[in-house]
């Protein structure tokens, strides 16, 4: 299962639901407003860091660019992908689940 999270962790609780339910070690892709989740120094950072232990965390680069997120503010251990990389992940990891 590949988890897709497109909501800001400061507006909605979609990410919490994903972290509570998704099997340990599931990969997570942050896209759209979800990309704010992987920025350093925010009130949500500790939760993501904890989730990152054992899960592969990806973030969509074009969505970071649109929102002006400087790369040095992206958390360590997060892998940046483009849409092609996003497609590859869906191929590799099987059924995607969009946490809308």
């Amino acid at each position: 299962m590949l988890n897709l999270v497109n909501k800001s962790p400061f507006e909605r609780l979609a990410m919490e639901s994903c972290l509570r339910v998704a099997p340990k070690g599931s990969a997570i892709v942050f896209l759209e407003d979800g990309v704010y989740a992987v920025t350093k120094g925010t009130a949500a950072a500790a939760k993501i860091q904890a989730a990152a232990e054992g899960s592969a965390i990806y973030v969509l680069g074009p969505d970071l660019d649109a929102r002006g997120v400087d790369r040095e503010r992206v958390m360590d251990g997060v892998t940046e992908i483009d849409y092609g990389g996003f497609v590859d992940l869906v191929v590799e990891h099987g059924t995607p689940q969009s946490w809308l």
Partner: protein
Amino acid sequence: MKFGILVNEGPFTHQASDSAYQFAKAAIEKGHEVLRVFFYYDGVNNANKLSEPQSDDRNLVKLWGELGKEHNIDLVVCIAAALRRGIKQDVLADGFRISGLGQLIEVGIAADRTVVFGD
């Protein structure tokens, strides 16, 4: 691989339709096949040919229509969702067709992966 895509939101208001479009394009560039894009909920508004965005903005209705034509993607608008929202044959953009929800289940069975884009 064969992909099915579900678009839950209309153009502009949410990024869902943009993300789905970029995903579909990238999948095709990687040599995959997109069997069908199913437009449900407010997603049916992506097929409104009267949509006329500002000249410096993207035109999602046209972009979907062109992508569909060029790569033989079946663009299906759900009839039940469309009736509620006033998307009918009169305003249906080129390249789209209106059909039932069964078309979503069918592509879910036929595709290797079904990806949902929404709000």
